[in-house]
């Protein structure tokens, strides 16, 4: 695994998994996360993602170690591992707080 800060490092060791009650829609150049089922009403749960967020969401197609997302995004966007880890962990925390993903104590791949 590449070098990252201590906090990010702990998070990067996790794995994330999408909540299947949401689905992403790519419309024009916009990515929208829409609830499919469950008690959440559509009206209070539509999220829009920017380009990087869209790419990260795309990568979370199933259970995936955060470290793998960091590696891929770092490579694709030509940014340092630390920068990638910081932004990605922050973004994943938001996704988790909205119950769009679940995290688990995964193993680094």
């Amino acid at each position, binding site marked *: 695994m590449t070098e990252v800060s201590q906090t990010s490092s702990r998070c990067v060791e996790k794995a994330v998994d999408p909540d299947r009650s949401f*689905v992403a829609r790519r*419309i024009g150049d916009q990515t929208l996360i829409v609830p*499919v089922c469950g*008690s959440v009403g559509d*009206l209070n749960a539509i999220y*829009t993602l920017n380009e990087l967020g869209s790419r990260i969401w795309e990568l979370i197609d199933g259970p995936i170690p955060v470290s793998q997302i960091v590696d891929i995004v770092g490579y694709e966007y030509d940014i340092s591992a630390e920068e990638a880890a910081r932004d990605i962990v922050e973004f994943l925390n938001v996704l988790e707080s909205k119950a769009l993903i679940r995290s688990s104590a995964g193993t680094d791949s």
Partner: protein
Amino acid sequence: MKEVSYGDFSARFHHQVAADQLPLSGTIEVTRRCPLTCAHCYNNLPMGDRQAQLNELSYEEHCRILDELADAGCFWLLFTGGEIFARPDFLDIYTYAKTKGFLITLFTNGTLISPKIADYLTKWRPFSIEITLYGRTKNTYEHLTGIPGSYERCLRGIDLLLERGLPLALKTVAVTINKHEIWDIQRFAEEELGVEFKFDMMMNPRIDCSQSPLAVRLTPEECVAFDFQDPKRTNEWELFAERHFRPANPPELSDELYYCGGGVESFAIDPYGGLSICVLSEADKFDLRKGSFQEGWQGFLRRVRRKKITRVTKCTFCELKQMCGMCPANATLENGDPESPVDFLCRVAHLRAYAFNLPVAPHGDCEYCEGGTGYDELMPSVARLKQMTPGKKVISSNGHLFLPVLGAQQPVSGGCSSGGCSSCGAHR
């Protein structure tokens, strides 16, 4: 990641993708069969119409089309009928659409909603459900729907959805049969149930060319009287006029036949796979059983949208058309010609303008403009409308609404033979 309010999201999203001409908003009629036989309905067929049922798109065909709609960028989807729950497999179609990530609205009369359906919708929650309540009394409701027991079934459907906290809105159509109960329905919806309410009164002929719905259509004067009595509608018309009134379109812009959103960002699909500009547009259809949605959207509907007017009519330079229901589909249904002005709509638009003191610029040979042959006939109606207090609902001594019947009886014909519809070939 941004979390935004729905209103902001919708406005911004429309703006952001406007240039792409994406089919953002679609209407799918899953069936035209319906357990009710409403006098005003433009498309209903009997529940037992076996031929209609056999011709309807199958579940698999719906799934294929929904896949194509998602790929094409459709986001808002309306399922309507007929009655959507007349199809035993409707929830299967609906669920498939939900898994594709559409924001789905359901139009239903509510009479077939069972606890099981309501429970299912709780799990697979729609964006919105709109039930049409045709009356506030059993007598009126069933006079309009023609089916005994339908009133109780509709109220039960409403209760089942509300008990589960589903996003319900009520609406109605104001016609001669229920016009005295519109405000009671509004009060029931907004005050007793706490749900949104809206109503419409612009009836049009049936899409099979029958003019029968016009038998229950309100007079133009009654329509505008409703506007006057409803503060919300009054405000909306005034705001609408402020926003949209501008000098008549220059000729180079006004030669387009269509000026709605149909074929630009919206479309309709009938129960048999016919793709068109809107649910009323029967003249130009692309068969989705023979081609893909993209072929229909980018090829066929674009060509329909590019159609030009063939002649100048009083509508061509009329500023009121922004607040008038006149469109090629309406004109075809009512006059058998997409460009022939619909007299009823023209009367309503002019009455509305005069009653609300909106400017009416000269726009050609129009009988309802000053100096025209119908102008003097409108003026007594305008005078009576202006005597009404905006926002005040007029109630008669027997507790019913008094609505002035100011206009002449609507001409009603029995169908194509006298309605002038080109779709069936009677007047080609």
